[in-house]
C-alpha cells in the first residue's frame, strides 16, 4: 500500500511540472502578464487545434510532413547502410581514404544546398525529400562504417573458428554487432531530418506542418501557430519514441542501458 502511494506521489511529481507550466500558460495571458495577442492562452490554442482536426486539414498537413520525412529517411537508410557495410567491411582502406571527403559532405549545411536542389528538381516534393535525404544519409553512413569497424574482432574470429561461413558471420555477428551504433546514427539523422523538413516547408511548400506555421504567422493567426508548433513538437517526440521502440524490439538481445 505504501509503495503504491509512493509511486503515485512519484508520478504526481513527474507530471506536476508540465501541469503547472500549462496552467501558467493559461493564466498569464488572461490576467495580462504577457500580451494575449502574441501568446494566446492554452485553451485558445487547443481550440484552434480542435478546429483544425475537425475539418481534417490537420491530418493532411501531418500526413504531408510525415510522408516527406519517411521517404527521405528510408531512402537514406536503404542507401547508406549497405554502402556503409561495403565500405567498412569489404574495403576498409577505401573507407579510410574516403573519410575526409565524407566528413566534408556531412558538414555541408543542407540549407545552403536547398537552392541548388530547387534548381535541379524544381520546387516540388523532390527538393524537400532530397533535403531530408541529404541531412540523414551522412550520419547514418558514418555510424554504419564505425559500427562495422568496431565489431569486436574476437567475435568474428570465434565465429570463424566454429566454422561459420561468410554469410553467417555477416548476418549473425557483424550485423547485430553494428546495429546499436547504426541505430544511433538513424536516430540523430531522423531528428535532424525533421528539423530540416519544417524549415524547408516554411521556405517553400503548400502543405505540411511547416507551411501551417508559416501561413499562420503571415495571417497573424497566433492560436493556430501555437497549435502547429505543439503538433510539431509532439510528432518529433513520437518519431524519436518509435525509433527507440523499434530499436528495443530489433535489439532484444542487448541489455538496455539507462537512457538519459
Amino acid at each position: 500500500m505504501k509503495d503504491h502511494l509512493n509511486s503515485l506521489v512519484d508520478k504526481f511529481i513527474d507530471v506536476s511540472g508540465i501541469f503547472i507550466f500549462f496552467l501558467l500558460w493559461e493564466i498569464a495571458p488572461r490576467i495580462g502578464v504577457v500580451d494575449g495577442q502574441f501568446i494566446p492562452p492554452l485553451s485558445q490554442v487547443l481550440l484552434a487545434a480542435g478546429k483544425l482536426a475537425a475539418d481534417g486539414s490537420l491530418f493532411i498537413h501531418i500526413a504531408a510532413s510525415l510522408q516527406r520525412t519517411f521517404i527521405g529517411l528510408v531512402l537514406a537508410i536503404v542507401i547508406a547502410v549497405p554502402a556503409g557495410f561495403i565500405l567498412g567491411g569489404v574495403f576498409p582502406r577505401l573507407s579510410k581514404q574516403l573519410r575526409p571527403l565524407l566528413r566534408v559532405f556531412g558538414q555541408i549545411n543542407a540549407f545552403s544546398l536547398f537552392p541548388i536542389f530547387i534548381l535541379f528538381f524544381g520546387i516540388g516534393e523532390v527538393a524537400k525529400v532530397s533535403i531530408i535525404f541529404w541531412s540523414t544519409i551522412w550520419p547514418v553512413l558514418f555510424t554504419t562504417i564505425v559500427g562495422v569497424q568496431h565489431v569486436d574482432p574476437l567475435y568474428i574470429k570465434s565465429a570463424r573458428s566454429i566454422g561459420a561461413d561468410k554469410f553467417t558471420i555477416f548476418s549473425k555477428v557483424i550485423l547485430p554487432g553494428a546495429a546499436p551504433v547504426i541505430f544511433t546514427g538513424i536516430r540523430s539523422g531522423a531528428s535532424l531530418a525533421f528539423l530540416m523538413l519544417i524549415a524547408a516547408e516554411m521556405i517553400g511548400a503548400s502543405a505540411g506542418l511547416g507551411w501551417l506555421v508559416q501561413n499562420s504567422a503571415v495571417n497573424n493567426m497566433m492560436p493556430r501557430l501555437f497549435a502547429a508548433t505543439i503538433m510539431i513538437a509532439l510528432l518529433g517526440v513520437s518519431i524519436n519514441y518509435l525509433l527507440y521502440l523499434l530499436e528495443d524490439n530489433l535489439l532484444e538481445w542487448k541489455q538496455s542501458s539507462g537512457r538519459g
Partner: protein
Amino acid sequence: METVLRKIVEKKIGSHTEKDKVGVLLKKIAAVFYDSLSIIIFIGIWEIAPRVGWVPQTFISPPTIIVSTLWDLIVSGVLVKHIGVSLGRAILGFVCAAVIAIPLGFFLGGWFRLFERIITPVLRLLGEVNPFSLFPIFILLFGIGEVSKILMIFWVCLWPILLNTITGIKNVDELLIKSARSMGVGGKELFFKVILPAASPNIFHGLKTSSDIAFFMLIAAEMIGASSGLGWLIWNAQNNYQIPILFAATITISALGLFMNYLFVRLEHKFMSWKESPAEY
C-alpha cells in the same frame, strides 16, 4: 683531440637530425596528400564534369570559377563582412546561453533536486519545440532585427547545455564527493576541485552539441529573414542566379563549421586531458 672528436660527432648528429627533419616533413606531406586524395579526386571530377558537359554548367559551376569568385568576395571585403556578422550572432547567442544555462544547471542539478524533478519534463518539452516554428513568434515579439535572430540561437543552444549540465551534476560519483569530504574538503574547494571537473565532460558535450546546431540554425534564420550574413548571401545569390557565389558561400559555411568543430575538439583535449578518450567517431 677529444674536442675535435666531439665536434665531429656533434656535427654528424646535427646533420643527421636535420636530414631526419626533412624526411619527417616529406613523410608528413605525403601523408596529408594521401589522406586528402579523395577530396582532390572529387574536386578534379567536379572541375571536369561541367566543362565537358556531363552536368549543366549553369547549375554546377566548376571549382576554379568558384575559387575565383571566392577570391573576388574576399578581396572586396564582402565575404569578411558577412562572416563577421554571422559569427557575431552565433557567438553572442551561444555565449548568452552558456552563461545562463551552466549556472542554472548547477543550481537545478545540485541544490534543488525536487524542483529539478518537477521542472525537467517542462525543459525537455521546451527543448523539443522546433526553433523554426518559434521564429515567427520571436519576430512578432522583438521585431525583425538582430534580437530575434540572436534569441533563436540562444533558444537552440540553451536546452542542450542546460540538460547536459543537470545530468552531469547529478551523475557525479557520490564516492568522489564523500571521499573528498572525508579528507576535509568542503565548500568552494569541493565544488571547483571535484564537482566541476567530474561534470565537465557532460557540460562539454552539451556545449559541443549546441554549437553545432547553433551554426546550422543561424544559416536558416538568415535565409528566412536577414539583410546580411552568410545565409543571406546564399539566399541573395539564389534569387539573382549567381550560382558561383552560392557555391562559394556554401563552401565558406562548411569550412567555418569544420573549423568550429576542430576548435571544440582541441579545447576538449586541452581541458579534459585527464579523461581517457572514448572511441572516436
